[in-house]
């Protein structure tokens, strides 16, 4: 799985790491039941503090995407499967928006506006909304 951060970005590093994991999950690079790399490894690889990585993992745990257990590491939960499907839907949505000539920003605000308040805090909905048009 590929994880990347941009130190020049205003988004906090731990959020960027969480984003990168979400993207990797969405792309199917890491599947439900698989372990995320140990925080120390990610910290070495990205040259950041280990606690930053742990904070990212905690964020992901809070939204239910990973299970953090002492001695077992961070295991991706079954939500990942749904996220992959959602990602496919998002890709389709972006593609059809593109063919209609609707800009990404316009689409993003459409998506943001269509979110019903009662599902606002559902993990998958949050993931969809937070996905940055980065690539």
């Amino acid at each position: 799985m590929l994880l990347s951060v941009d130190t020049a970005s205003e988004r906090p590093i731990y959020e960027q790491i969480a984003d990168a994991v979400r993207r990797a999950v969405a792309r199917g690079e890491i599947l439900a039941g698989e372990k995320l790399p140990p925080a120390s490894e990610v910290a070495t690889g990205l040259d950041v503090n280990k606690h930053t990585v742990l904070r990212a993992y905690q964020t992901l745990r809070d939204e239910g995407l990973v299970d953090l257990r002492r001695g077992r590491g961070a295991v991706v939960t079954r939500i990942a499967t749904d996220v992959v499907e959602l990602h496919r839907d998002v890709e389709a949505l972006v593609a059809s928006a593109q063919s209609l000539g609707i800009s990404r920003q316009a689409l993003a605000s459409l998506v943001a506006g269509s979110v019903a308040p009662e599902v606002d805090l559902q993990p998958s909905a949050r993931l969809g909304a937070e996905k940055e048009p980065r690539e």
Partner: protein
Amino acid sequence: MNASTSQRDGRGDSDGPGGIGLTSAQRDDLARAKRTGLWVGLLAPLVVITAALVLVLVWMPRMPNPAATHWGGSGGPDGFGSPWSYVWLLALVGYGIVLMMWGIVEFSSRTPPPASERVLPVWSGVQRFLVAFSLGYAAFLSAVLLGSVIVQLDLKDPAQATGLGATMSIGFGAWVFLTATGWFVQPGIEVRPNVERAVEPILLSTTERAVWFGVVRPSSTFIWIILVVVVIMMGAWLLVFFMPADEGDGMAKNIATIATGGVTLLIVLLLAMTTWFRVRIDARGLEARSALGWPVFRLPAADVQRVETAQINPLGEFGGWGLRWMPGRFGIVMRSGEGIIATRSDGRIFAITVDDSEAAAAVLAAVAKGAQK
């Protein structure tokens, strides 16, 4: 015998239209290397074995029957059988191994079809070494078997045959000497398909950092083989453990139990150490760490000259699975299929089988580029 010092860079010869396959100069090089290889690695060994075979046949009437066929550590022979076993041994183990080795050389050095995904050299120190080794091996086998025959010529009782110390020394000496000779009489040619499919590095701005994580894991077939081996070893150990000891033989049984248990443990440990690896690619380069934490293999980013993805064939290109050292190349190759092939600045190759190799190679290419700045 350091291959990299004697390798000539095949890519320097490219005069073709910077495309796929081999240039005409490379084809000539390959033909020349193969021609020498054929003489050194196939015809010469066959001649050596045939000569030994003829000698054994000529001496057959002077051999005791039964003849001594096995020598123990104590000096004299401790196993006896038909004198014809020498003929069968030479024919099967001699011709058999030499033909098999040439088969590997021939198979691995076929001219790749255009548009093939072959990235590894079709001829390099690997083939050169196999050819030389084949010659040394033929000499060793012939010397040892002839020596064993000579010490029992005209004997009534094969048990009177002397030890094989001198024969073994001569045999090993011949092996080393002829392998070295076989290596040096061959031209140091490296023919590498001129494929321009170096991967596109991922774009990283100066403020961006990327890391790629992956694993090296064996194919399911390999896991089954490992399981079968481990089960057999455990079975042998249990068998020894529960075997009723003869009277006064408890000591021997204890030793046997400990030895089989120790060997089983050692094999399990070795397999665990060399079969599963966690791979991390970051600004430092590539690091492959065994699932047990040791050993660790590193490929520094600054040492990476180019990176490609390829379909890797462990048996054909590395002579087997696992950690493979061959002249001019090192591989952590646990299954057939996709992987990364990185060329170091001195031309040596580092190969590793990972899933999602495109992304891995793209990151490695990016950090290699970054390290060269």
